[in-house]
C-alpha cells in the first residue's frame, strides 16, 4: 500500500578485503521517518555514501522511486531525489546562508551559464525562484534572520539546521540525515525532533542515522539496525527495543547513555 521511495537491495560493499556492507536490504516508504542505527563502524554512513553515488557497490541495486541509481554521478542522484546532510558539518563556509540553500535549489532548474550571462528571461525567472525558495526554507528552519551571514560564522546548531535546509532545497524524495543531533543538548534534540516531524509532514520521507536513542525511538516509524555491515533487525521502535540481538549488539553497551 505504501510506496517505497528508496529501496536498497542486496547491497554488498567492499573496501579492499574488508566487507563494509554485506547483503543489506533497506527501504524508506513514502511519508515515513525511517532510522538506521548501529554501533560505530557498523556501516551506516557507508550506506549514505553508496546511495548518493559517492562509492559504487560491488553488488546490489539502489532504486529511487523505482528508478535505478547505479552508475549515476552524485549530482544526478541528488536531482533524482536523494539529498543528504553530513555527520561532520560540510557547509559552503565562505558563502552566506541563503547562498548555501540557493546553490542546491539551482540544481532543479535548467538555466545555463550563457543564459545567466545575458540575463535571458528564463534565467531571471529561475534566479528569482531559487532565491525565493532559499528564503522560504530558511524561514521554515527558523534561520531567515541570518540569511546574509556567512555559513562558517553561524552558531553550531544553526549550521546543522542550515545543512538540512540546503538538502531540502533539492526537493528530495528522501532526505538523508547523518547524525543531525550530534553535539546537541537535550532541549535542542527535542526541537530537532519536532523539525524532522515537520519535514515529514511537508511530504518528505526521512532516513535518519542517529546515535541518540531517545530521539530515534521518539520520532521513527521504523528502525533498522546495522552491525558489522549486516542488518540484524528491523521493526518498530518498540520491537527494536525488545530485540535481543540488538540489545546484545548495541543497546546493552554504554552508547545509549544519553
Amino acid at each position, binding site marked *: 500500500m505504501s510506496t517505497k521511495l528508496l529501496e536498497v537491495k542486496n547491497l554488498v560493499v567492499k573496501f579492499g578485503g574488508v566487507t563494509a556492507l554485506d547483503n543489506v536490504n533497506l527501504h524508506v516508504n513514502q511519508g515515513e521517518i525511517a532510522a538506521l542505527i548501529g554501533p560505530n563502524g557498523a556501516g551506516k554512513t557507508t550506506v549514505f555514501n553508496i546511495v548518493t553515488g559517492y562509492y559504487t557497490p560491488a553488488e546490489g541495486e539502489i532504486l529511487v522511486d523505482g528508478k535505478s541509481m547505479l552508475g549515476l554521478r552524485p549530482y544526478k542522484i541528488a536531482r533524482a531525489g536523494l539529498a543528504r546532510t553530513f555527520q561532520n558539518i560540510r557547509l559552503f563556509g565562505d558563502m552566506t546562508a541563503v547562498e548555501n540553500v540557493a546553490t542546491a535549489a*539551482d540544481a532543479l532548474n535548467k538555466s545555463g551559464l550563457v543564459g545567466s550571462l545575458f540575463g535571458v528571461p528564463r534565467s531571471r525567472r529561475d534566479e528569482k525562484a531559487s532565491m525565493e525558495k532559499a528564503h522560504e526554507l530558511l524561514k521554515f528552519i527558523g534561520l531567515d534572520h541570518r540569511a546574509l551571514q556567512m555559513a562558517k560564522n553561524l552558531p553550531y546548531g544553526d549550521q546543522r539546521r542550515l545543512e538540512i535546509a540546503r538538502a531540502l532545497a533539492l526537493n528530495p524524495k528522501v532526505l538523508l540525515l547523518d547524525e543531525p543531533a550530534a553535539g546537541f543538548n537535550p532541549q535542542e534534540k527535542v526541537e530537532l525532533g519536532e523539525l524532522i516531524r515537520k519535514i515529514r509532514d511537508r511530504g518528505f520521507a526521512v532516513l535518519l542515522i542517529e546515535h541518540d536513542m531517545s530521539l530515534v525511538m521518539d520520532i521513527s516509524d521504523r528502525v533498522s539496525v546495522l552491525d558489522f555491515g549486516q542488518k540484524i533487525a528491523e521493526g518498530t521502535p518498540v520491537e527494536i527495543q525488545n530485540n535481543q540481538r540488538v540489545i546484545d549488539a548495541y543497546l546493552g553497551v554504554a552508547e545509549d547513555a544519553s
Partner: protein
Amino acid sequence: MAKLNLRDKFGDWWDGASPFSRTVFRILAVLAAYAIPFLKNPIIDTPETSFNSVLFYPLVMFSLMAVGLNVVVGKSGILDLGYVAFFAIGAYTHAILSAHTGLNFWEIIPFAMGFAMFAGVILGLPALRLRGDYLAIITLGFGEIVRIIAVNTEAIGGAAGLTDIPGPSSVFGIEFTVMDPRPYYWLTLTAMLFVIWGVLRLSHRKPGRAWEAIREDEDVAEFMGVSTLKYKLWAFIIGGAVGGLAGAIFASNIRSIQPELFTLNLSIMILACVVLGGMGNIWGVILGAVLLGYIPEKLRFLSDYRIIFFGLLMVVMMNIRPNGLLPRKKREVVGDKS
C-alpha cells in the same frame, strides 16, 4: 575594531548609496581609468621605460589576464599553472590568421577567443577529473606543451617565432601605431571592462554560486546537485577565452612573437597577481596585477637586482596579508531577531 578600514568605509557608502550615485561613481571610475595615460606625474612615472608602455604591458595586460585566471583559481578553486597556454594560443591565432587570411584584427578576435576556449575544453575534459596538486601538474604540463609545440613547428616559425604581425585597423579615428601604446591600453581596458561586467554578472548568479560551492567543497557541491565537471569546464573555458583575447591584443601590439614569450614564468606571474591581490575578489586581483606589473618597473634603477627586491617585497606582503591585499569578503548583514 578600532582600526580604520577603508574597505568597510567604502562598502558602507556603497550599500547606502542611491543607484544614481553608484552610476556616477562607476562612470567617474571608468573615465579615470581611461584618462590615466594623460597623467604626467613624476611620482608615478617609471624610470627608463615610458609610463604609457608600462601601462599597456604589463599593467593592464596583467590585469586582464588576472581577471580571467581569477575565474579559474579564485572563484572555482582550481589551481591552474598553465594559463600562459591560452595567452599563447590567442597570440598565435592572431599572428597566423592575419598572415594567411584576409581577416583583420577585429575579425580575428572571436577566433582567438574561440580557439582558446576550445583548448580549455581539450585540456579540461581529461584533466578536470583530477583534483588539487595532480590537476596543477597537468595544467603546468599543458602550458609547456603548447610552448614546445610552437618551438618545434616550423610552419609557425619555430623558435624564431612570427614577425610582421599587423596591428588593429583604426577605429573611431584612433590609429594603432607602433610608437604609441595608448590606444592599446584603451583597447585592453575596454576588453577588461567587458570581462569584468560578465564575470560580475556570473558571480552573482547560479554559475557564481556553483563555482564557489566547488571551491568550498567539491564533493558536497556534487551531492547538492551541482554538475561539478560542467562548471569547472566552464571556468576553464571562460578563463581560456580571456587569455586568448589578451594574447591576440598582445600580439597585435608587439608585432612579432616568439615561443619564449610564453614561458611558465608568465603563468606564475599572473597566478601571483591573483594570490597577492586576493583570490576570488576581482578588484583585489586587479590591484595585485597593477602592483606586480608596476613595482619591477619602478625598481628598474636597481637593474637586475630588482628581481631580488621584488621577491623580497612579495614575501613581506604575503606575510602581512596572507589572504591577499583585498581578500574576497562578503559583507555580512548580521541580524538577530531573538
